[in-house]
């Protein structure tokens, strides 16, 4: 396998331009929808390169919007995005595969407050206080609490004294833990994973509300990506639970594997989006 790949590269190389050569690596956009550390990413990259027979390049950016833009203008082939931007731009991309978390392709949004804050029991208790969202394109970290405020009849703009976007879910948890914000909205999967990895951080926060389940942030493919590559990439991800190396990587994600989405998986997010964006 490796040897054929090597020969193929040698025969191809003289005929193609520099740009084509650079583009010959598979580019994958990543958002902080999962816990990513560089050591883990390097291992995952190695795994994927072996499976795909091509070099793999992870593209990371500070916020969801930039990654989404990269998908929209075709600068990345695949991306691990939140369900919200997928739903929003579904004409330009499609779901390649969806992670399976605790047996289902689903997750929740958590509302958290500081552990020392015993009074706050509901979202209403946070009125007039400081609140941290994760990213404006995050379902769990923005869309869900916005929709909830609207559903309760509040004006999301004036409800809190001050809000800010902390970027990653981990930052939201830290902002609440140190008291920079009185409350925050966070991806439940990231929170739970962080609770296992760094309990000293999450135990300084308290979950006061868990949302209903939504479709887990999917791995999407841009429109027009090479169908063969698309298939191979999907197989590589979905085959992880079938190999020892893949399972070890999945364990670090706290994921069970990757599966095929059913058509109705993201209707919940779509409903929230329509609700919030109309409001």
């Amino acid at each position, binding site marked *: 396998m490796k040897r054929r790949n090597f020969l193929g590269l040698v025969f191809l190389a003289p005929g193609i331009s520099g740009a084509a050569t650079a583009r010959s690596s598979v580019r994958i956009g990543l958002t902080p929808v999962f816990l990513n550390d560089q050591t883990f990413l390097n291992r995952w990259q190695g795994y994927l390169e072996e499976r795909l027979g091509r070099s793999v390049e992870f593209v990371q950016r500070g916020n969801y919007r930039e990654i989404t833009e990269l998908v929209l203008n075709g600068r990345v082939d695949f991306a691990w995005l939140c369900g919200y931007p997928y739903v929003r731009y579904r004409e330009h991309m499609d779901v390649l595969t969806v992670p399976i978390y605790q047996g289902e392709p689903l997750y929740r949004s958590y509302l958290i407050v500081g552990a020392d804050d015993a009074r706050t029991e509901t979202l209403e208790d946070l009125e007039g206080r400081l609140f941290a969202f994760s990213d404006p394109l995050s379902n769990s970290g923005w869309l869900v609490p916005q929709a909830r405020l609207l559903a309760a009849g509040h004006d999301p703009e004036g409800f809190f004294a001050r809000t800010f976007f902390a970027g990653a879910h981990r930052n939201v948890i830290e902002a609440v833990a*140190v*008291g920079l914000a009185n409350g925050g909205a966070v991806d439940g999967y990231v929170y739970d994973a962080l609770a296992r990895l760094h309990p000293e951080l999450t135990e300084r926060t308290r979950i006061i509300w868990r949302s209903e389940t939504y479709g887990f942030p999917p791995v999407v493919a841009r429109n027009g990506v090479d169908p063969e590559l698309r298939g191979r990439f999907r197989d590589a991800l979905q085959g992880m639970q079938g190999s020892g190396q893949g399972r070890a990587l999945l364990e670090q994600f706290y994921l069970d594997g990757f599966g095929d989405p059913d058509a109705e998986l993201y209707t919940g997010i779509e409903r929230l989006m329509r609700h919030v964006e109309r409001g």
Partner: protein
Amino acid sequence: MSAVLVILLTALILSSVLLVRAYQDSRDDLISNALDLGTVLSQTLRPAMKRDEVWMAYETIMSPLERDAGWQYAVEQGEQPAIPVEGKPEREIYVLDTRSRVYVASRPREYPMLDELARRGAEHAELVRRIEARDDRRPVVFDDVWPGRYVMVVPILAEDSAPLGTLVLSYSSALLVPRFLNALEQVILGTLLVLVILLPLGWYWGKRLTDPLAHLSACMGRVGTEVPSDIQCDLYDGRDEIGQVSYRFRRMLDELREKEELERSMVASERLAAVGRLTAGIAHEINNPLGGMLNAISTYKRHGDERDPVADRTISLLERGLVQIKGTVGALLVEARLESHALTPDDLQDIRTLVQPDIQRKGLRLVWDNAIDAPVALPSSQVRQVLLNLLLNAVQASDEGGEVLCWLRADNRFFHAAISNGGKHISRGRMAHLFEPFATSSGEGHGLGLWVTYQLIQQLDGQIEVTSNESVTIFEVTLPLSEGESS
């Protein structure tokens, strides 16, 4: 001891000065570092403030504090991280918006966002008053707003110098403690090092200074309690004051020794003179009746043909005894024999020949160093007897296989002779009575050799000196030449 004290005191004073200096330096250092940090932070904060990025601003002000360096790294490495440190009260950083409300603070719980700083207490109100009263856009340090805190205020400005907010770094002076302790440690180590080097040096110098003095004073203490000739002091020799004193003291000792020597020789001379007068008187008193008795015996022997054999034997016995007395008295009574020819080189050669048998019998070596090759205006018989006596004494005193030296010189005024041997040296006790009659304790001779020698030299107005130490014994004879007879 005092040198050590001086060194210790100097080290103490220097250390104190250094410590005060170190404290001021670390204070200046702290403030200057904080101002530098504040300047950098204020520029980093500019985009965050402009775009209202609270989290970015928070991360920016926390970056110099301990929060992320350890924690973020640990998270990325998947290691067990430290609990994210909220800013510690020793080092507080907060950003105020243009209305002096808290924008973001290193201790968010203490300083929540949107809180009006002026309402947090009198010091905060004073700080806000000063910040708002300032027109200057440059960083400033307030060390009198808070007791025990240094407050650095740095305005955050947009590119067009429009104010975006204010960065406040409030540092506790307790932060100086570790720096100061560090400086303290260095100063103490340095001082100890200097002391380790200086103390032995000081001790050495002090010793160099005081040792000769102590030695000198110990030596001086012996004067008066011991005889000067016994005082052997190895005194410091140098050109400094101590060296001068030592030199003077040595001179004084020498003079004392000379004086003692002089006194001793005077006493000896006087005693010898008294003994000489006594013996001469006794000898004369004995000689007169002795001459009569010997004459009577001679007359008796000449007259009377028929004598009683018993009486003859008795008379002979008497005569022998009287002759012996006469010999002894004659030896005691050294009389100048005026009739004597001048000393010639042949006389000296005779002496050499005369002692040769004794020299050979004892297996000695005679070194004959004679520079006299002309007659000398001295009575030859006396000089011959003096030299012979001294040489025979030397031979007698020498150990088997030793060496006897005879050195002879003459000039216009004096005749010099030195006879030396390497035998047993003459003890102090013997030396005091060396020239007195019957003073020698050895079994050989009648003990009158040196007495006779002395008497002869006295009659010639000469001098004899003896030097005796472990290695050599020297008799030196100086005789003045007879006037008008020098050759």
